[in-house]
């Protein structure tokens, strides 16, 4: 069972990376695209917890760091998304075994977007990457967060449903009494 979950999570992440780099830029709002990988990481964290969130975030971010057209220092998205995934996983713990409500999911996505973009930009500043422009940061974060919430309405229930299907019977009894 865990093997199937890991394969599914990896598939989700790869699909998200592909779509985010090739298709979503064509639907960008003012140049800002949707952070599909971040949304999938949040969904995995919400369905499996903080450990999964951190690891999925690291791997998803690593792919974003090395898949073309990325041209920044590798590890920046990995760090940003790992932290977002971990925090999203903590949100799931706070709400305990009860199903996570839509408002909490939306807030988690906004939190994830804010955290990941801040960490990504901050590491860029620390590395003296001239591309990072803090004067534009707020606007782009606002648009990105709004866009992410819209996309999350579709993506998160889908990912959580699929991940929920492969939960072993022992664990299903535990989560859904």
């Amino acid at each position, binding site marked *: 069972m865990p093997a199937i979950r890991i394969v599914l999570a990896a598939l989700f992440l790869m699909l998200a990376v592909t779509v985010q780099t090739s298709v979503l830029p064509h639907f960008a709002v003012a*140049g800002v695209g949707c952070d599909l990988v971040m949304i999938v990481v949040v969904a995995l964290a919400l369905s499996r917890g903080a450990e999964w969130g951190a690891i999925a975030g690291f791997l998803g971010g690593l792919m974003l760091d*090395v898949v073309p057209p990325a*041209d920044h220092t590798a590890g920046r998205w990995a760090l940003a998304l*790992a932290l977002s995934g971990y925090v999203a996983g903590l949100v799931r713990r706070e709400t305990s075994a009860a199903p996570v409500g839509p408002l909490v999911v939306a807030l988690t996505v906004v939190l994830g977007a804010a955290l990941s973009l801040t960490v990504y930009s901050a590491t860029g500043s620390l590395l003296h990457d001239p*591309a990072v422009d803090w004067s534009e940061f707020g606007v782009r974060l606002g648009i990105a967060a709004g866009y992410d919430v819209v996309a999350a309405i579709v993506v998160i229930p889908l990912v959580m449903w699929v991940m929920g299907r492969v939960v072993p019977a022992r664990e299903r009894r535990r989560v859904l009494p």
Partner: protein
Amino acid sequence: MLKDLGTPAKGLVRSAGLPREIRRRRTILVLVILASFTLIVLDARRSAGSPVEPLRHAAAAVFGPLESGASSARQPVDNLRDRFAEVDRLKAENEKLTADNEKLISDLRTTDYARNRAAELDRLLKVAPKYTVTPARVIGMGSAQSFNHTVTIDAGTADGVRADMTVLNGDGLVGRVVRTTEATATVLLIGDRNSTVGGRLNSTMALGFVSGRGEVGSSATLDYKLVDLKARPKVGDRIVTWGSSGNAPYVPGVPIGEVTTVTAVQGALGSTAQVKPFVDPSRIDLVGVVTGPPARAPRTTVPPGTGR
């Protein structure tokens, strides 16, 4: 949570979070953060050849075809949208007119420069260089929130594309190749804040530098600074590349953009201008990579009409 604690089932007690589980969670977080920092440190010193480079190659090998496929899958959607927007006849007519228009505009943009240059070249070698251009399609784009103005194209080393090659399209200069793999290449657009291009004013042949401002959208502009402090760019002046030595990374004579505003630098000589690029970075699709040298070396005295 309280309800959980009230029930004696073994699984529930585990889900309430024993210190062991919290410890494990935190260990994983620390490990992942350390791994990220290790990557950043390893990749940050680019000069020494990053150990992440093989990883990038592997990723491009896997995701290049995927991105290419996803871009193709987008086509039917685009077609459907077109069908709603306009009748086929209008589309064909429009295409023809756009092509004509593009040709006329590019003629217009380069005419001053071409005349000046032609006069010079006529004296030197009586011929203008012609380059071999490899066409490629844009299959991936960076997003604005990552502050990267880069795109992936579906041509790589197998097509003769190497780093530091000029990328252009029918409108003008797009950028330069920064990294290649077997089947893909990463292009740094001229709008990126890491990008600087040598630009020559069409009308006066004055030299300067065009640098990106990191702006997005169709209203994005570039900065232009002249080398000669006394020269003044005028609004409406057009800028073309003046070319680098060995034609890498930029070949000469590619239109870059048009001067929209000129501002005097406070407390110093000279002035900076804002340039509107001819290429809208958010709408590039088919681009050409200058892969070949001119038909003949520009400074040898060969008679015109021969070669290639």
